[in-house]
């Protein structure tokens, strides 16, 4: 612990920045923006040190910091990252800079907006680095509040409904997770261990499969809402359409990843036998999400809502990869969550660009924009291709690995998932056609200005990332190899260790029923 506390620095720098922000007078909006940008940028630059100094050969936690907090309960300030969280942390700091830039045009209550934004960044980073369940839960909930206000204050016309829906939906899952965390804590004590919320210690707790089954269910629900998995997704389109641009970017780019991250970090390694039992069910739901999200995206008449539903489809792919439970699937899933942050994040930025000019997002209000805004159209098309998985751009690498991984586990699942590739081309290109092609016949669209310097400023990094991640994924994948190998190894080992354990379960009959409907074997 002699090293520089990188993780605490990047996590609390935005919080510190937010406190300083309080001292800047409300009138000096330029100063507020500049300060926020500076804080986000410095945080990003420091986080780059994580990338440079991360040891890819080591699968365990790195940059670990640990301080006792409430010793009597076994709660500590315990943080660290591995290959799973490394890129999510960097994605968060990267997107935060992009988002501050894209929020330059916010005129209403700039100070509060930027304040919430910085608080949100601390919340997200905290959740990603926490290795103590209580600490994690605190950050997890802390993320909700600034997001709630960002939607509720700076959102569109239906913002209150969307904000409350978002908050309550997520809260339901969170509370169930809290109960499960406490249950885990007591189960650990009952097993004769010292009281602790230390995640790595709890990894070692072997629970009987039927106990795991219900513990997993609780965690799963919390994370599945966040992902969101079908049919728990209906908060997402509302939240996305109502949120301001930067809110949508963060929501899609990072907050949804909290769900998939939760599965990878908590739900799956803690309860491997339950994962095995639930996997067929989860794969079915993931595949339904892929197809359903794509179908529903197809018939949207609001561009932002279309992108929101496409997220449901993309996240279905991520979940399918995770539950394929092999290297290709899990690594593909993790990679796809990063990809989705870039491509869907960029799509929301692009929708924001046009919304600022036209104050509408209805597809029918556009047409022929490629004529008046050629650069904008070009960037939009590149990101569209990245989103629908064109090789050479980021989306393909993730989708390919996921489908390959899924195929090795369940051919049926892969076959159905692959139809998502067709549907994605359908809904995206149809939208592109209606917005950008055809005659430029609406007067309001004729004089539209093409991309400004500022817009180029935040779009170019996204485009560069889309190409980089598509052409040379090794930069990113190689840092996750050791971690995921260890992850899979421990997963299998723990599963074997727990297999023969038994505990009387009041609800065992329900589990038996589920097993009957979805046989637990992966054999095809």
């Amino acid at each position, binding site marked *: 612990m002699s090293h520089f506390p990188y993780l605490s620095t990047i996590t609390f720098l935005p919080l510190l920045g937010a406190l300083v922000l309080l001292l800047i007078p409300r009138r000096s909006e330029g100063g507020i923006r500049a300060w926020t940008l500076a804080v986000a940028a410095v945080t990003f630059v420091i986080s780059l040190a994580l990338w440079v100094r991360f040891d890819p050969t080591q699968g365990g936690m790195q940059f670990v910091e640990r301080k006792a907090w409430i010793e009597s309960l076994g709660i500590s300030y315990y943080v660290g990252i591995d290959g799973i969280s490394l890129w999510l942390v960097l994605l968060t700091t990267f997107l935060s800079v992009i988002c501050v830039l894209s929020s330059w045009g916010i005129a209403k209550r700039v100070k509060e907006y930027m304040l919430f934004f910085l608080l949100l960044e601390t919340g997200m980073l905290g959740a990603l680095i926490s290795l103590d369940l209580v600490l994690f839960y605190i950050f997890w909930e802390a993320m909700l509040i600034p997001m709630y206000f960002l939607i509720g204050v700076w959102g569109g016309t239906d913002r209150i409904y969307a904000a409350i829906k978002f908050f309550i939906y997520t809260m339901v899952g969170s509370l169930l997770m809290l109960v499960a965390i406490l249950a885990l804590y007591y189960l650990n004590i009952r097993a004769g261990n010292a009281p602790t919320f230390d995640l790595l210690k709890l990894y070692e707790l072997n629970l009987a499969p039927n106990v795991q089954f219900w513990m997993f269910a609780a965690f799963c629900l919390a994370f599945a809402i966040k992902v969101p998995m079908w049919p728990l997704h209906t908060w997402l389109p509302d939240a996305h359409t109502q949120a301001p641009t930067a809110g949508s970017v963060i929501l899609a780019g990072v907050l949804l990843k909290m769900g998939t991250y939760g599965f990878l970090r908590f739900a799956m390694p803690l309860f491997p036998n339950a994962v095995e039992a639930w996997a067929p069910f989860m794969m079915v739901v993931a595949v339904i999400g892929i197809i*359903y999200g794509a*179908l*529903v995206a*197809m018939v949207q008449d609001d561009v932002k809502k279309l992108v929101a539903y496409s997220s449901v489809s993309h996240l279905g792919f991520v979940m399918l990869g995770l539950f394929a439970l092999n290297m290709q699937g899990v690594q593909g899933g993790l990679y796809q969550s990063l990809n989705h942050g870039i491509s869907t994040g960029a799509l929301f930025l692009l929708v924001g660009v046009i919304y600022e000019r036209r104050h509408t997002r209805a597809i029918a209000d556009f047409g022929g924009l490629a004529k008046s805004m050629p650069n904008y159209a070009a960037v939009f098309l590149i990101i569209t291709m990245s989103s629908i998985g064109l*090789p*050479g751009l980021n989306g*393909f690498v993730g989708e390919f690995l996921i489908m390959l991984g899924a195929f090795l586990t369940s051919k049926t699942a892969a076959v159905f998932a692959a139809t998502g590739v*067709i549907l994605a081309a359908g809904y995206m*290109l149809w939208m592109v056609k209606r917005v950008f092609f055809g005659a430029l016949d609406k007067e309001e669209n004729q004089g539209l200005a093409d991309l400004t310097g500022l817009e180029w400023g935040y779009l170019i990094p996204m485009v560069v990332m889309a190409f980089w991640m598509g052409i040379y994924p*090794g930069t990113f994948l190689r840092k996750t190899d050791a971690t995921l190998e260890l992850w899979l190894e421990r997963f299998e080992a723990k599963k074997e260790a727990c297999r023969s354990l038994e505990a009387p379960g009041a609800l065992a009959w329900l589990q038996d029923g589920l097993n009957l409907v979805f046989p637990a074997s992966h054999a095809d």
Partner: protein
Amino acid sequence: MLDMIWLVPFFPMVGALVNGLFGRRMPKGLVATVACGSVFLSFLVSVGAFFSLKALPPAERVFEQVIFEWIASGSTKVTLGYLLDPLSCVMILVVTGVGFLIHVYSVGYMSHDPGFSRYFTYLNLFCFAMLTLVLGNSFLVLFVGWEGVGLCSYLLIGFWFEDAAKAAAGMKAFIVNRIGDFGFLLGMFLIFWKFGTLDFVPIMKEAPEVLVAGGAIVTAITLLLFVGATGKSAQIPLYVWLPDAMAGPTPVSALIHAATMVTAGVYMIGRCNVLYSMAPTSMTVVATIGALTALFAGTIAITQYDIKKVLAYSTVSQLGYMFTAMGVGAYAAGIFHLMTHAFFKACLFLGSGSVIHGMHEEQDMRRMGGLRKHMPHTYWTFLIATIAIAGVPPLAGFFSKDEILWNAWANGFKFQWFLGFAAAGITAFYMFRLVFMTFFGKERFDPHEVHVHESPASMTVPLWILAGLSIVGGWIGIPAALGGANQFHQWLAPVMGGASEAAEGVKQAAGGLGLVSTAWASEAAGAAAEAGGHADLVAEYALMFLSVAYALLGILVAYICYIAKPDLPGKVAAKCRGLYELLYNKYFVDEIYQAVFVEGTLALATFCYAFVDVVVIDGIVNGTGLLVRSVGSGLRRFQTGQVQAYALTILLGAVILVGYYAVVASF
């Protein structure tokens, strides 16, 4: 020279980058130089590579170059690398050679277009993708090119995006191709599942050990890959995008939708000939689909009036021949036809472009006629290419098409032979119908209003080169029966030769199934002459004579219908109204697809959204909220703040409790 192979796709990529990023600020001359120059450099490197490869002994003509590790995860390792062997060498020569000519032609054709630099960016990008496709050392790198050419096709079909119909055609092409990709992807996964790699060299080497010849897996793999091919190469049932693709600029139709991209499926099967040879069922499917497509598309071409539509259906039909060749095991013959078709069909499309250009954007042949006087270069080159496609010796099309039909016959695919044979005369007919309607007879337009002009040299020179190739291109593949050495077969033998060993396996496996004759096993090795005995030779001559006679008959009928008795077609059409309508409307396939697949998907999507999402799921969500709220507001009535009310409630509670214990609990 061989280790410079990476330069072949590299030059067009640089060209695309330069024109894409700076083209709008560059003078047109510079844009054109960059675009044409980059492809020409690729062509030079390709020629150099060809001679380097030729200098090696046949068995050693394989060169693999790895650029970098692309995707690696767990046991999956995919490198981005190039594989040069006789097959890919033929392909890069065709792509860069024909591609260069079409680039040059485009400089003239597109000279007045405001999207000049955008056009050449896409065209260079296409060359890069196509070269990646044919040079890729694994299924995945091939797929990169496969998708890349699809993207360029999408961009170029919808090049004039302000026309909504053109943009729609581009979208249709992309989505239909994606349906094919679905199959291709699954085929790749199956291959990876079985082989643990996607690299061509180990797969083709190990296939006989890893897979059971004639077994379900190899059949599934090859059929799934073929689904991809039907998309990219416009075969039944996924051909529907290609006729619409004519919305793009005509040179694009020549390069992408005739000469190169659409042949990718044929190339892919050629690349995987080892696998296909192990799957007789798949071979039969490929041959049948190919032959059916050849005939089906040919019949549609008879009735079309749009000069480009005729050529489009002709392309679909000719691609059908190539697949027939692949399906009957005559891989080299299929690739041979791919090459000759690239020459004459590119020539035809560019010629039609010259006509359209000279006629000021007129595409309807009913408003043409007599053009041979106005545009002699276009006329002569077009006529040469037409004779070539019609299968008249000694032009290129005769040798390649005849070889396919002969192989189909000789290998026992009599039904497929019949379909292909039937289509051959139809080809001659509709092509000469096109020539007669366009270049002969009286002008059916007002020469005072439409000032027809011959195209500039930048367009006619490529036409003449392609016309020349349409004549001599077939001479490198003259069969032994006509005293030739069939150098083309010998050149491809190292790649296609592997098929013979695998085919031996099939012969044993399929022996009891009696699915197809497997005599083609030796054919595939490029040893047609050795296999055929004297009787075969007689049959070969007979068929050759028959098909030439049939082609001439087609030309004669076209002459009668469109020169001698111009009112005859109208009468025939009126007499067979139903059939004519069916053909003219392309068997209503587009309408059926629209009603079933497009409308069906949209209906399902609307159901998911309007009912499942809004009514069911959100109904439950909002219903829960409403329930909590109404329960809350109901209970709120009790919190009146009046002490009397609370006292009353306490009293009531006490009475109930006491009553309960007094009455119930005392029993």
